[in-house]
């Protein structure tokens, strides 16, 4: 089977550091033989969650827009790479706006109980977080991690790895970073190999 890899770019800024890092990851995944697709959230039409909790009764979101189609696409993927630059010590409002919309899937799992992922499914679905930050602080990604972990958990994906590079302001961009692009390419290759092996067993 061909491994399906989906990259989601949460930056409002096209072709910047984070999207370049995502592209390298997808390039590696493609070279390893997977089919890859990239979605840019900025190009989609979706609104943030209204917190109406209608999905707690039905398991359906009352807002039918591009966010729902993207969640469908995610659930059909073997690997997802979620990419966001760090804005104000967290993921972008763009990406948070999309992630908050997962509530109907959370409701399907825990309230309506129509969605359940077996351990074997979770093991064969890998999530990767890709990020860059201007600041050089070691803790600059800490606000993002809990949100990304929650997203992967809800969607039935096992956290595979982070590809993160801080201190972009000092490096003057991702191209000047000594290791990040190479790391992204290699992790793209590796995750596909890992998934191929898992799907053979």
């Amino acid at each position: 089977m061909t491994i399906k890899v989906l990259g989601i770019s949460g930056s409002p800024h096209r072709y910047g550091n984070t999207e370049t890092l995502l592209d390298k990851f997808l390039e590696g995944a493609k070279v390893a033989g997977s089919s890859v697709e990239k979605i840019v959230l900025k190009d989609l039409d979706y609104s943030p969650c209204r917190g109406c909790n209608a999905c707690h009764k039905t398991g359906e979101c009352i807002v039918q827009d591009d966010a729902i189609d993207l969640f469908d696409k995610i659930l059909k993927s073997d690997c997802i790479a979620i990419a966001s630059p760090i804005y104000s010590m967290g993921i972008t409002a763009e990406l948070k706006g999309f992630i908050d919309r997962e509530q109907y899937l959370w409701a399907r799992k825990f309230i309506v109980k129509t969605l359940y992922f077996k351990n074997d499914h979770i093991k064969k679905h890998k999530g990767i977080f890709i990020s860059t930050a201007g600041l050089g602080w070691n803790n600059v990604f800490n606000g993002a991690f809990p949100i990304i972990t929650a997203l992967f958990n809800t969607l039935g994906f096992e956290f595979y790895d982070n590809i993160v590079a801080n201190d972009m302001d000092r490096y003057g961009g991702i191209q000047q970073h000594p290791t990040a692009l190479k790391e992204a390419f290699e992790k793209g290759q590796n995750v596909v190999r890992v998934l191929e092996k898992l799907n053979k067993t």
Partner: protein
Amino acid sequence: MVIKVLAFAGSPRRYGNSETLLDWVLASMSGESDVNIEKIALIEANIHMCNGCNACEKLNKCIQRDGMDTVHDKIIEADCIVLSSPIFCMGLAAQVKALVDRAQVFRSRKYVLKLPIVPPERKGKRLGIFLATAGQKWDYVFDGAIPSVKCFYHVIDIRDEDIHYLMVNGVDEKGAINNHLTARTDAEKLGREVIMELKKRLSF
């Protein structure tokens, strides 16, 4: 002279738990003399997301013309800024994150253009309050939100030690906070204490 309080109700759901918590704080503040309170519901405030264009690093203002134009000025004028948010997916609601990201203009002013945020006589006198509610009971449920909250207050010149927090977990359905044992008392106490502290700082 009055103390100006600017409050943001950050939830997309009006009159829910995080806004109720906010209203308790504001009600106790309004019981004090010389306090002027303005509450803004972010869902109605027409604040778009940051484009990440970095134009504010040169222009000292945002190129977007929307509700942030007036909110920007109000943030500078306020003595106390109260931010309330529900926790969605382990973080701030996207509507709140949009406001926080748009504070980038203050960060550019402070760190790139090296200009003051508030006049010198008001520097170090402002206070912040962060209010949050979460459905989950986990004690770490606020960890994803706090770094961005600290960042928001930092760039608008409210010091880390001047941020007060009241975060209530385990309240999910609308109205659940009304049954919480201590939330209301804590909120009212916090509102009064913050006004007292501000009066001291502004030498009323």
